[in-house]
C-alpha cells in the first residue's frame, strides 16, 4: 500500500505523511523531488538519525528523533498550520478507521475508548490540496471500513479524495466511490463485495 501511495506523489510536491503506514511512503518516492513536512514546524524532514546522533530539539510530529536535510527550513506551529490551512501542502497521506462514500473521514476517536486527541489531523484534512487515505479495506472482523456513512466521530466532512487499501484504489466522486484499480490478484467483484459504500 505504501508503494502504491507513493505513486500518487508528483515531482516538486510538498507532502505531509501521517503516522503508521503513511510514514513508509517516504521509502518509495524514488527519484521524485518530494519535500516532507513535519507539522510541528519543519519542511525537509530527513530519516532517523544514526545511533548517538539523536537531537532532542529535532523531532517529527510523532515525537520521533529525525534528521534535517540540505533544504530544511524550520518555523513555528502557527506558521506550520498556516501553510496547511492555506492549501500550500499538495497532499497528505493519512491512515483512517472509517471513510464513507461522501468522503467523510474518521480517524481520531472511538467513543467509550481512551481519547488521545486529534493532534493535527483535522487541520490537515481540512487544509491540504489532496487527502489520500491508506488503510486496510476491512477491519479484523472482516467488516468494510469503506462505509455508506461513518459511524465514528468525524475528523473531517467531505475531505477524502482517494482511498488506497490492500484491495485496490478508489476515488470519492459524485454519488459514491469509483474504482480506480484493483490490487494485484483482486477481482472487481471481490473489491465490491468488501465495500459497503456505494460504488458508482
Amino acid at each position, binding site marked *: 500500500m505504501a508503494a502504491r501511495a507513493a505513486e500518487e506523489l508528483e515531482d516538486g510536491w510538498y507532502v505531509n505523511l501521517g503516522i503508521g503506514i503513511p510514514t513508509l511512503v517516504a521509502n518509495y518516492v524514488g527519484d521524485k523531488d518530494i519535500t516532507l513536512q513535519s507539522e510541528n*514546524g519543519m519542511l525537509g524532514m530527513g530519516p532517523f538519525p*544514526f545511533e548517538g546522533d*539523536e*537531537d532532542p*530539539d529535532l523531532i517529527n510530529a510523532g*515525537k520521533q528523533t529525525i534528521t534535517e536535510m540540505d533544504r530544511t527550513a524550520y518555523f513555528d*506551529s502557527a506558521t506550520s*498550520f498556516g501553510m496547511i*490551512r492555506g492549501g500550500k501542502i499538495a497532499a497528505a497521506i493519512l491512515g483512517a478507521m472509517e471513510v464513507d462514500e461522501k468522503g467523510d473521514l474518521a480517524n481520531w476517536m472511538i467513543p467509550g475508548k481512551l481519547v488521545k486527541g486529534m493532534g493535527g489531523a483535522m487541520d490537515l484534512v481540512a487544509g491540504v490540496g489532496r487527502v489520500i487515505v491508506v488503510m486496510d479495506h476491512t477491519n479484523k472482523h472482516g467488516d468494510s471500513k469503506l462505509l455508506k456513512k461513518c459511524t465514528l466521530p468525524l475528523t473531517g466532512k467531505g475531505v477524502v479524495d482517494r482511498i488506497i487499501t490492500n484491495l485496490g484504489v478508489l476515488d470519492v466522486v459524485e454519488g459514491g466511490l469509483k474504482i480506480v484499480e484493483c490490487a494485484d490478484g483482486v477481482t472487481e467483484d471481490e473489491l465490491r463485495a468488501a465495500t459497503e459504500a456505494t460504488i458508482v
Partner: protein
Amino acid sequence: MQKIYPTAAAALDGFLHDGMFIAAGGFGLCGIPELLLSAIKDAGTKDLTFASNNAGVDDFGIGILLQTRQVKKMISSYVGENAEFMRQYLSGELELEFNPQGTLAERMRSGGCGIPGFYTKTGVGTVIADGKEHKDFPTGPNGAPETYIMEEGIFADLAIVKAWKADETGNLMFRKTARNFNPPAAMCGKVCVVEVEEIVPVGSLDPDAIHLPGIYVHRIIQGDHEKRIEQRTTRTRGAS
C-alpha cells in the same frame, strides 16, 4: 530595564495566582519550559488552566503539575502519553478541551495579535464545530460558498516559553523543531517568562535572525535543561 532573573522562582514571582490561565510552549517534550514548570510546582499555584499542545508525561513537563493536582483544565490537541492525566480526566477531576493543533496555534497567535476571533475550515462538520458560529465565505471554485467556523483568540495571564538563546533585551532564537508553539504562546501572554540555554550580550544576535523580538519577553532565566527525548528512533550506521 533588567529582564534577567537569577532563578525560575524569582522570574515567576508576582506573576502567579490560583485559577490563572497559562499558555505554554513546546511540542511533546521538545522545547518545553521545563524549569518554569518545575518552579510552578514548587510555588504550589492551584486551579491552573493550561493552553499547551500536550500534557507532558507522568514525571516531566506539565505531567508534574498533574501529580500535584495543580491543574484544573487543559486546552490541548493531544494528551496521549500521560497515565495520571487519563486517570484524572476519566474520573472527572480534570477538564479537557480538545483543540485541533493548528487551531490551537492560531488561537494563541491571534490573541497575541489582538484578534479575538477568526474563521477556519478546520473542524467543520465535526464535534469541534458544535456550538460555534458558522459562516460561509466565497472561497470555493468560481466564488462558490464554503463553510467556516469561528475560533476565538487565546488571551493568557502568563506565557511560559523555552528558547535556545536570548540577548539581554529578550530577543530570542529557537533551535530546530524546538521552536514549535513557543512563539505563539509567548505572544498570547499578558506577561511572558522565558527560560533559555544561553543568555548572550546584546548585539550578539543577527537582527535578521531573531525569531521573536524582545518586546514579547518580560523576564528571562538561564538554566540547565534535561531536554528529554520521548521517542528515540535511530537507524544503524551503514544503513541507507
